[in-house]
């Protein structure tokens, strides 16, 4: 008798777990497109162009995932989210994944019940000040007014940094990067702090960029990456390994230009496994064998995405820095495809 109850409970628990977890990939396949949460606009990372098409570095990740699933990088719909609505949009199931330069932190991962699927940009918080202020280190900013975006990790980092160094500051809260840009130029704050990538791209739009300096201190670690809801590991794996495929492709020299050629078979077994000519990695993910080929063709490998949207030849002009491959002294390190 007791045994029956136990088995019954087990079955019920199993069913419940099955319903809670196995859904997303099947749901996405059934509806025929990926619903991806992005920012309402961040230069280089996600913004619609003059024709209304979303482009950018984060958008590239969404398109790669869509291409891996459907073979079609346009099978994706974008939900713009703000810093305040992004997590509810993901938790309530409005979006399937979030690629919205979101910092991977302990509490977001554990407490908010999300699963980060890797890092597509290693960032860190910095300070920008007008040159004529004559400050050379962030530690000299005692008593300064600082423009800071609310609802972000930068706000907390700033408080930590000033407390640690026992100096005071006055925050000027702002809502978006554009607003911060404007407040800073209008002199409403002495310093503007946000992720260093944001500072560089903001400074690039100034009329006289040489009048402003970015201080050398980087006061935080900001690993930005795509995330999904907790509890659906199959779906999380699809996103994680699509991102890894883009990173590995750069390391292995697979680009959008030569991927068709290489997909016919090469002497490098890892390339063959990645591109599906050897083994059945795609099948294990529940995708087709050429999933990685499609993902790479969508916007190119990681390096190509970087160069197109935020690299040194764009107005944003970011150097690879920490975001170089591990073989070049950066932090990008994809686990092996085996």
């Amino acid at each position: 008798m007791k045994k029956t109850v136990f088995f019954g409970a087990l079955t019920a628990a199993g069913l419940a777990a099955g319903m809670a977890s196995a859904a997303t990939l099947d749901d996405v396949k059934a509806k025929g497109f990926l619903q991806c949460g992005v920012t309402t606009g961040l230069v280089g990372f996600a913004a619609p162009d003059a024709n209304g098409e979303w482009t950018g570095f984060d958008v590239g990740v969404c398109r790669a995932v869509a291409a891996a699933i459907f073979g079609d990088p346009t099978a994706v719909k974008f939900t713009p989210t703000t810093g305040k609505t992004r997590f509810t949009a993901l938790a309530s199931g409005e979006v399937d994944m979030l690629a919205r330069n979101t910092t991977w932190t302990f509490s977001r991962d554990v407490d908010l019940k999300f699963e980060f699927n890797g890092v597509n940009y290693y960032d860190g918080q910095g300070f920008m000040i007008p040159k004529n202020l004559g400050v050379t280190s962030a530690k000299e900013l005692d008593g300064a007014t600082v423009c800071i975006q609310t609802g972000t990790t930068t706000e907390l980092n700033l408080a930590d940094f000033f407390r640690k160094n026992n100096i005071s500051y006055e925050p000027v809260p702002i809502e978006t990067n554009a607003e911060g840009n404007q407040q800073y130029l209008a002199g409403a704050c002495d310093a503007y702090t946000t992720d260093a990538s944001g500072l560089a791209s903001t400074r690039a739009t100034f009329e006289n960029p040489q009048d402003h300096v970015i201080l050398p201190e980087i006061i935080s670690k900001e690993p930005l990456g795509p995330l999904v809801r907790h509890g659906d590991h199959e779906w999380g794996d699809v996103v994680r390994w699509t991102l890894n495929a883009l990173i590995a492709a750069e390391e292995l020299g697979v680009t959008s230009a030569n991927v068709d050629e290489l997909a016919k078979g090469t002497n490098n077994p890892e390339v063959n496994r990645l591109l599906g000519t050897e083994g059945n990695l795609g099948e294990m993910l529940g995708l087709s064998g050429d999933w990685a080929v499609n993902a790479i063709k969508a916007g190119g490998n990681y390096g190509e995405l970087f160069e197109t949207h935020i690299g040194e030849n764009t107005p944003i002009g970011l150097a690879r820095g920490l975001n170089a491959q591990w073989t070049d002294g950066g932090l990008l390190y994809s686990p092996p495809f085996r």
Partner: protein
Amino acid sequence: MNRDQLSFVRHDMLPEAEPPVTEKGIVKWLRENLFSSVSNTVLTLAAIWAVYYLVSASGPWLINGVWDTSSLSQCREVLQGQVGGCFSVLTERWNQLLFGFKYPTHLYWRPALAFVLLFVALAPVLFSKIFPRKMLVLTGLYPFIAFYLIWGGTILTPIFALLGIVLGFLVYRKLIYQSAAMGLLGGVATAFVFWILTGMLGDTVAGVLALEPVASRDMGGFMLNLMLGVVCVSLSLPLGILLALGRQSTMPIIKVICVVFIEFIRGVPLITLLFVANVVLAYFLPPGTNFDLILRVIIMITMFASAYIAEVIRGGLAALPRGQYEAGDSLGLDYAQSMQFIILPQALKISIPGIVNVAVGLFKDTTLVSVISMFDLVGMVRGPILASTAWNGVYWELFGFSALLFFVVCYGISQYSQWLERQLQTDHH
């Protein structure tokens, strides 16, 4: 007195002399209006300095404006460090500012046509003395035409919606003689049954005279502000009147419901209601339901505005002397009649400035939807356009353009209301 005693009488008139220089033309006007006293002279000089400062600062910016580059950096190259506006952002992105970035380009004529028709529909309501009453039929049909034009889809959706309302109204007319409550209930029930029945037809009729459908999510720009403003103001007026009357009602349940509704809604910031509409409802609704976001926002803004309008109208009702109510009673009019013919026409007239104030405020408040990631005019500026690599860093041109659009509409509304007040003036002092 004798005529001969007068030593001198002038026989002819003096020729008209020119008035002194200080008493005529521009000099007089200047002296009387600008330099009539020391303090006025100081103020005039200060004003001249302020105007000069503004014009000399903004003049070159407007005149040197660049209209045909494709990015901010190009624009700066053309300007070569001179002062000048980069108006090319407007020429390149005007369509996104007006219609949002996802509304299909080849369908812009549809919302544009709906906008033109809006004036045709409003004319008989706003200028009832000039246009024939028969044009009100157009006003009644306009919401359905506008829906069909803006959202597209089969023409049967708005037609069925209209038929449902007509059917419900007919049932209401039939039953109203038995009891008011039954009439109302019967009417509403009939309309809903009709809508549910026609809703079942679903996909089978989806292709009938269909325009290319456009999803709510794809709407944006100034079009979204106008849509929200027009719909919410026109819905909240009747609702506000009902709430104001309900608040004065002697029936305790109705009174309590109205008081609680008004006080609750007025006690909550609009932005909170918008967040509820956007994120919180998603938790309560069963997963997979797709309750249109624009509809959710319209409901919230309408509730918000109707609570305020109710209070404005209550002020109008309270301003009427008690004798007016008693006059209605003494004529043997029932409640509905005395409200319709005696109380409301006077109360509403008193309330016009307040109602217009709420309407203008509400129209501007529609920009708050940019916070819940809808791309209205301000949302388009703050989000996609400022975040594009080409236009990151252009502020004055974009926000100035937005301010101009809003100013034109709000100034129009306020001018109309002043005209209306003059029209309705009955005390000829």
